[in-house]
């Protein structure tokens, strides 16, 4: 995936022209938004639940270093091995070494965005280890040789028919578009693999510091299988997933499932707190937790940007986003797509490579409205845009590529804008000139061409509001001053 502004322009243009993709996205996004809204409308006060989530995550992040230590202590005391990875390279090596030590040839995976960040499957393949995705959506995109296009619904860009063709071609089964039959087929393939796999790899939704509990939310039972059937379970998480107390999980889970799929609770909810203990009939012999930084501690260092790390990966901001819902996840060329990706990626990859993503928003604020932990995404987009062109000391200290988006041309435009708008007389003259120019503006010039491809240019009025109110306003102002002094 090539991350830069030019690639983004090409890919989103292609996505916008891709009619089947647009249709799939529109259908899916409309459905999933509806489910989310329906569920939230059933809460006594859905917005209050969002603010509770916000408070829990803010508090957790404020105490992050201590909580991580506490988590490690609790897990270790119960026999879960904790590994710290500063980079994705470190994390990959940790997973590979565990696999090699145990002689694992097949890894079965639950859904994990951190593993996407690590490009774990490719890495393992390079070391002769096969990694198979067991989440149905991930299973589909893996068959298609694509990355996930959504945080929660990885294959949301595909239609049922496209998946039917894929199953027929890749699994060599008889062609069917019947969803039950296709699901049963995937299940049959996966069942066998669960039994053969030497290791299960999953993500983590929450890790509770107080009790040393790893929580895993899922709907298909593949997470349950990955964490109980293979002899080794490796869980992957970013440093931001830890929360202080077990009782805080309840509001977060409600908010997560309601936001992600509109469910009151997920079909499976796994609480993992140790490997198999003596006398227990199932469960892995070894459980490992890999805690990945990969640039998160830089984000953590900036108090405002830190809110990026509150994210619980529900995908609600993607579903509601007018940009994501028209171009889909692949056009971004990022692991994390949509609104959350637009604030996270520029920070992880640096503004030089990812800064353009902060511009891919109208700042409509729909993401902030639905966010279950109230991450002020529009404010953070504004902050990143600013750091790209006029970096603050705080940004220079923590952000890769601060100032990298500064362009002389744009800077000149805004300087000129400032000159005009700081001089009311000049501003009025310009408005008047615009009025005279009317529709004779050059439609094919630069940015105006982008506007006028499908839109008429607005026509400036001959007389501005300043002009219309010219005589009266002075009298009113004088009148007001008189009445004030009476």
């Amino acid at each position, binding site marked *: 995936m090539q991350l830069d502004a030019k690639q983004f*322009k090409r890919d*989103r243009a292609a996505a*916008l022209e891709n009619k089947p993709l647009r249709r799939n996205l529109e259908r899916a996004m409309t459905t999933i938004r509806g489910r989310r809204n329906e569920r939230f409308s059933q809460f006594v006060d859905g*917005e*209050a639940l969002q*603010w509770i989530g*916000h408070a829990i995550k803010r508090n957790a992040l404020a105490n992050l270093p201590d909580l991580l230590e506490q988590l490690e202590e609790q897990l270790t005391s119960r026999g879960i091995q904790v590994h710290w990875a500063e980079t994705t390279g470190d994390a990959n090596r940790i997973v590979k070494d565990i696999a090699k030590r145990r002689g694992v040839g097949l890894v079965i995976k639950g859904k994990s965005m951190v593993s996407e960040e690590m490009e774990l499957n490719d890495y393992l393949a390079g070391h002769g280890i096969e990694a198979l995705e067991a989440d149905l959506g991930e299973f589909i995109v893996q068959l298609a040789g694509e990355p996930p296009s959504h945080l929660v619904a990885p294959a949301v860009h595909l239609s049922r028919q496209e998946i039917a063709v894929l199953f027929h071609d890749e699994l060599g089964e008889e062609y069917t578009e019947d969803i039950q039959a296709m699901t049963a087929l995937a299940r049959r393939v996966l069942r066998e693999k669960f039994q053969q796999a030497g290791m299960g790899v999953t993500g983590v939704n929450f890790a509770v510091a107080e009790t040393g509990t790893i929580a895993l939310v899922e709907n298909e039972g593949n997470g349950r299988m990955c964490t109980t059937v293979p002899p080794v379970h490796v869980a992957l998480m970013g440093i931001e997933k830890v929360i202080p107390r077990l009782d805080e999980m309840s509001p977060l889970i409600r908010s997560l499932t309601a936001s992600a799929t509109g469910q009151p609770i997920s079909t499976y909810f796994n609480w993992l707190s140790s490997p198999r203990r003596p006398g227990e009939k199932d469960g892995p012999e070894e459980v490992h937790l890999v805690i990945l930084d990969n640039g998160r501690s830089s984000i953590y260092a900036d108090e405002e940007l830190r*809110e990026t790390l509150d994210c619980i990966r529900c995908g609600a901001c993607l579903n509601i986003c*007018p*940009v994501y819902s028209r171009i889909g996840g692949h056009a971004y060329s990022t692991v994390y797509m949509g609104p959350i990706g637009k604030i996270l990626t520029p920070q992880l990859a640096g503004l030089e490579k990812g800064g353009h993503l902060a*511009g*891919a*928003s*109208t*700042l*409509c*604020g*729909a993401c902030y409205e639905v966010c279950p932990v109230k991450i*002020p995404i529009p*404010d953070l987009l*504004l902050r990143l*845009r*600013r750091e790209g*062109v*006029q970096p603050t000391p705080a940004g220079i200290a923590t952000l890769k590529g601060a100032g990298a*988006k500064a362009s002389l041309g*744009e*800077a000149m435009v*805004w*300087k000129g*804008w*400032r000159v005009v*708008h*700081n001089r*009311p007389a000049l*501003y009025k003259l310009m408005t008047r000139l615009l009025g005279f120019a009317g529709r004779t503006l050059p439609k094919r010039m630069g*940015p105006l061409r*982008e*506007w006028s*491809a*499908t*839109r*008429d*240019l*607005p*026509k*400036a*009025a001959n*007389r*501005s*509001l*300043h002009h*219309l*109110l*010219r005589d009266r*306003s002075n009298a*009113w*102002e004088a009148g*007001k001053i008189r009445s*004030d002094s009476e």
Partner: protein
Amino acid sequence: MHPPVKREYPSKPEAVYFYGTCLVDTFFPQSGLAAVELIEREGVRVIFPQGQTCCGQPPFNSGYHREARAVAREQLALFPADLPVVVPSGSCGAMLRVHYPGLFAGEPEAGAAEALASRVFEWSDFMVQVLRVKLADKGPPLKVAYHPSCHMLREMKVRDAPQSLLAQLERVEVLPLANQEECCGFGGAFSVKMGDVSRAMVADKCRAVRQSGAELLLSMDAGCLINIGGALDRLERDSGGSADAGKESGPSWMPLPLFIQQRVTGGVQPAGGTASLGAQPGGGHAA
């Protein structure tokens, strides 16, 4: 960030400041004038400081805070008396009310910015919550749709006021739009920097407007209107529009204050739907 606190509204003031916004000033001065006159009808004097230009949102949204602040500083000084500042736009209103305090954090004007923010009201909200206007409809039956702008909804937190003004107009039927609260794709510089996505968004918005059955689209935000209106007019022209006598003409569009004024004074009604009429509220009337 913290949960929003419900806004408290003052009682009816003797006078207000009017901050016209550069877009209304340039493209819809007649609607600005209508907004002013509708306030005056309620016995409130309106002060229009001639030194006003732009709130600074365009460079602010592009990351150019120094330029935004330089211009915003001049705007801050325009409203010395402790009077409400009424803005006929959710977006520019939000710049003054929501973003000025942050823009001036740590600056000598921080206090002034906070003080101004607390006095800023979006026009329709002010008409409903403070002036408690009663509107008598003098126009003919008409089907309209209303586009709520994003910043009005989500930054100014004004959801009901424009609709409640429209609800008072007896012969005006307000039809719902599909995905009513979805962004129209304007986004200032976004509309040209990400022109392709912007055009896809406004195309969907136009479809929703045309399918709503409304003869007229209304909005409080000039940015959204030049975007949706510009696209509606183009569609109209491209499809032959009212040039073809047998064909029904598509929806026209207009800023809300101008529409309200026309309804309560029995003034000009849009004859419905030609491209030139769509732009008339801005250019035509002023000419």
